């Protein structure tokens, strides 16, 4: 009995020590965070926020949360990358204070989400731009040019060999091997798939007849789990081609294909070239909702057409934690917040879009 009691004591002591240690490390990181962004005066939230959703913006969120909590010692934000659909469901169920989603709310989702916002509505706030890279692994091919229709044919299984005349026509001089193409897609549902197929269905209607959806609808190919799974598959297997967000392509050091844009140029993917496409996007949401409709066929020079916009979904009015949500989103939509993402493989929001987001966030109450 005595032994047992001392066991409890030891347990409590250990827990206390761990808790203290955790506090200690927080304290030490705090000054460095605040010195980083000392320039911008930010309102600080005080409470804790729970959010979840899109995995595509998980890295961005982690970066933002680190910087924001460094500045605002009282704030506690927890973002889980559970997937866009799960994020929206959690928002509707009231377990998430805001949600991250790769697609704007669908009408039936919006009706449910609006019900959570007494006196207001649920708004889509574009916050992170994740360009989608087309990555490939073909022995001896360093440079690959593709256009929407060829891409659609490859992913639909209509082009099955790398030395197909359609690919050769776009890449004169390249030594294309006679190897079977392994088109890799995401297993399960994914916002990346949704945005990529949206691009294909809008830019290559004749060759892509599967419309756009979160689940992969085309026959054949091979599926991998998660963006990291796709990147690993391309990295390890010759003859593969896939679509992943830029950050994953760069982390795994994969070769990216150049994509033909509306102006007829084959563009390389950079944060800047992706931003040019977003700058031409129109706001299709009504009122304070900022859902964007992207013009994939943009004729702007140097624009990379395949981009993914991920949104934060929050209440414009009526959330119990409105002040905290506003303070955090104010930071993420600020120029400082957007600039913090550049090294992570995301593109910053173009100023035209960013200023609109900032105005909407300022109106949250």
């Amino acid at each position, binding site marked *: 009995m005595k032994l047992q009691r001392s066991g409890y004591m030891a347990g409590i002591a250990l827990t206390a020590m761990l808790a203290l240690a955790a506090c200690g490390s927080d304290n030490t990181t705090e000054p460095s965070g605040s010195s980083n962004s000392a320039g911008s005066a930010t309102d600080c939230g005080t409470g804790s926020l729970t959010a979840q959703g899109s995995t595509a913006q998980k890295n961005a969120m982690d970066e933002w949360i680190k910087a924001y909590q460094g500045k605002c010692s009282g704030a506690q934000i927890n973002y889980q990358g*559970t997937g866009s659909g799960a994020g929206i469901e959690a928002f509707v169920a009231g377990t998430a204070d805001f949600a991250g989603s790769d697609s704007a709310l669908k009408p039936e989702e919006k009706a449910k989400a609006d019900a959570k916002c007494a006196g207001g509505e649920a708004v889509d706030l574009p916050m992170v731009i994740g360009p989608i890279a087309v990555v490939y692994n073909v022995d001896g091919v360093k440079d690959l040019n593709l256009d929407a229709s060829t891409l659609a044919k490859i992913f639909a299984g209509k082009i099955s060999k790398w030395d197909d005349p359609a690919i050769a026509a776009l890449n004169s001089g390249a030594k294309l091997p006679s190897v079977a193409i*392994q088109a890799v897609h995401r297993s399960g549902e*994914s916002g990346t798939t949704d945005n990529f197929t949206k691009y294909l269905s809008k830019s290559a209607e004749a060759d892509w007849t599967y419309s756009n959806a979160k689940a992969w609808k085309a026959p054949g*190919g*091979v599926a991998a789990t998660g963006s990291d799974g796709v990147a690993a598959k391309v990295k*390890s297997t010759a003859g593969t081609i896939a679509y992943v967000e830029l950050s994953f392509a760069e982390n795994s050091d994969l070769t990216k294909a150049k994509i033909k844009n509306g102006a007829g140029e084959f563009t390389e993917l950079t944060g800047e070239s992706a931003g040019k496409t977003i700058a031409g996007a129109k706001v299709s949401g009504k009122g304070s909702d900022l859902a964007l409709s992207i013009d994939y066929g943009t004729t702007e020079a140097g624009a990379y057409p395949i981009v993914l916009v991920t949104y934060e979904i929050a209440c414009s009015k009526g959330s119990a934690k409105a002040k905290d949500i506003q303070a955090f989103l104010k930071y993420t939509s600020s120029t400082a917040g957007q600039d913090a993402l550049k090294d992570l493989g995301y593109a910053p929001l173009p100023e035209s879009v960013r200023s609109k987001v900032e105005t909407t966030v300022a109106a949250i109450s």
Partner: protein
Amino acid sequence: MGDNPSRSTDANAGGAGVTGRHASPVGIGVSPSSYEEPPFGGGGALPKKSRFSMESGFRGLSVASGAMVLVIIVAIAAFLISKAVPAISADKVNFLSFKEWFPNETEPRFGIAALAFGTVLSSVIALIVAVPISLGIALFLSHYAPKRLATPLGFVMDLLAAVPSVVFGLWGRDVFQAPVADFSVWLNHYFGWIPIFGGEGPFGQSIMLGGLVLAIMVLPIVTSLSREVFQQTPGMNEEAALALGATKWEMVRTAVLPYGKPGVIAAVMLGLGRALGETIALALTLGLVYNISFNLIQVGGNSIAANIATTFAEANDTGRGALIASGLVLFAITLVVNMAARAIIYRRREFRDSAA
């Protein structure tokens, strides 16, 4: 004979039961079920039967434990059915024959055909590969290997069973895939005229890769159970076979294998159960494509459990219901397999008084 003293030598020649160590001695004392009658003899030395004794208390506990199995099975079935029925009724296509899986649309369309097919096919491949090897290992360990070698080898075999399946999956995806792809190319080149090895590629994350990884996973289960069974072959039978002039292999064939058959069947069925329910190893090694094809080497394949693992995170209400419905199908497949195994074992028992 007599070179392996560790083997259990059954006192009742002819073997009253495979599970010799559990068999109660026959003809001594009273059968335990007749505890209500006062036992013969013993007189006052035996404790008196009281209304709430340890005896009845323990009996109650064990009855409750036994009943618990049924309760759990029924509860699982009830849970699965209650969640699955709304999803299936929302399905716009035939659940049993449709091949693809889009339950999260506004018009849900999903079917189990391709998933169930992939589950069964990969498990069958696993068993075809694993069972002969397992039996070989088991026979070697029980009858051929010197004891000094057999003990550590058996231990290593058991250790293999303790490796988590995600490790097998990652190994299959990152290490085993390349050799299997090369082997597939070779098969395709020389045996492409057989439809299961046909196709134009790409090769690699195929049902064969999944099946082979599964085979390695079921190997330790089948091996260690079969070894136990073979070790319990009555020494008398073996010695009789040898005395009649049988060689060692003939002795194994005439005495050991027939004696161990029900046990081996049970071992194989346990292995099949593991193969059917395997989740993450298949999610990592299969192509996860919804199609039905007997081609073993082309990229493709999917299974019920792997599909649940990969699509559960993004599923909505109907999607979850649909996945649970697929779980119900897996439950049914496993049940049928187990019942078939029982049937085989019991049929043998009738003409040979042995059970596994």
